[in-house]
């Protein structure tokens, strides 16, 4: 298990208990966190599970593969610390992770 905090663009916070073996996206969806759409269900096909990972945490994660990188370029409101949350697996090492969400997953 790991505690993950999602922060919406307007500042609203949602702290969830994420299950090991699920993705960060699934943790958000399982807990009805608004601001993630996950249109494709977790196959790195749609870029609507997009989140901003704090720098300190980014270093602890395996870097994105080329498929994820390609899809990040299709997301809206991309920043240097953008990741697709469906590609990040929950482990105990992620306890305390903070994920900020973009103002929109589907438009500028």
């Amino acid at each position, binding site marked *: 298990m790991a505690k993950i905090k999602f922060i919406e663009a307007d500042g609203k916070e949602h702290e969830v208990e994420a299950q090991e073996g699920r993705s960060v996206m699934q943790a958000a969806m399982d807990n009805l966190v608004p601001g993630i759409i996950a*249109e*494709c*269900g977790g*196959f*790195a*096909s*749609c*870029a609507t599970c997009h989140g901003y990972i704090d720098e300190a945490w980014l270093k602890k994660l395996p870097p994105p593969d080329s*498929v994820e990188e*390609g*899809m990040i*370029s*299709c*997301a*809206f409101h991309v920043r240097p610390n953008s990741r697709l949350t469906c590609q990040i697996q929950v482990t105990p090492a992620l306890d305390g992770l903070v994920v900020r969400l973009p103002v929109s997953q*589907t*438009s500028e």
Partner: protein
Amino acid sequence: MSAFSGQKLDEIPAHVPPELVYEYDNARDPRMLEDPHARMRSIILEAPPIFFSPYNGGQWFVTRKKAIVDITMNPAVYSNAFLTSGQHAEEHAGENKDAQQGFMMLPIAADPPQHTAYRAPLNQPLSAKSVAGLEAAIRTMTNELIDKVLAAGRCDFFSEIAEPLPVTLFMKLAGMPTDRLAEFRHLATQATSATVDAATRAGVFKQIAGILAETIKARQEKREDDLISYLLDVKINGRNPTFQEMLGYSITLFLGGLETVVNALSFGVRHLARDQELQAKLRADPSLLPGAIEELLRLYGIASTVRQVMRDEVCHGVQFKKGDTVLLLLPAANYDDEAFPNPEQFILDRKEQHQTFNTGPHRCVGLNLARLEMRVFYQEWLKRVPPFRLDPEKKPQFMGGFNLAVTSLPLVWS
């Protein structure tokens, strides 16, 4: 079972319990031909959630959303690898023909991990961000089509608006010569017609493949700013696509964006023609269109899809055997009460995701383009065409098969 051999089985397979047999012919059922989606709802109310039909070579039908989601999220057990465009053609004809040398439609006919490699290059150019660039072209095309019918006060929406729009758009997207539009439209109509015999259809597919091949060859010589040029240079497992793979992609893109959008538009417009209040509401406030389009997509699903069972497996209490064919009846799942409260009602801004684009790794790659086409189409149509209704003299006509389809939709307006 021989998938879609076109013949009704004489004997039910031994492992199918008699209480799970429900005789539904998805190409010819009279109630479906009368009103396809009323039939989908009746199947939810009358048939077992998973049933076996002996028609068309015999296959299971899965009709509930949860079961379909579970199946599509399990490609190791439920495989796509047997699909070719030749078999699609046979099923559509509903006739028993020898197996054709079909084209391996990509990425449909692959399973993960090969599927992932074939699918990845399509996700970017068909992402919401990328297709937004087509908005102006869709608007222009829509208005050109409306121009031709507006003054008459009537049209057959299907043949005059719904059919030409996606074909024209595809040709633009793919980068094909628009001076061959009429020829291509004719071929597209024949490719998807239920009244064309299987041999003719196979010939039509060959012709379409021939035209696509010409375009691919031309782009190999000189790249243009289109999807075929883009795909020539992508990497699949570290190398560029082969010519056969380019054909596989092109045929999928062509067919995928054709029958589906044509019918989604037609069923949607039919609904609005029968609901003046909703029509007025959307005309007055076009910002409601995205939500309305999703609910119309739910009520009027089009495509169903098929899986082959790779090992004996129990699915929601039903024993499947290795080799069984399973048809995922997506339009019926949209009327599953457990998934959609009051499923027959049009409810703007439902929260639950509909099954029309399916789920899992094969979830429709064109859904952003479909949504954009529909949004732009309705914006222009509702703006320019006065309140329209069904022609009281001529009923709409429907067709079945893999896709629920409209073949004629006469409309009138003042």
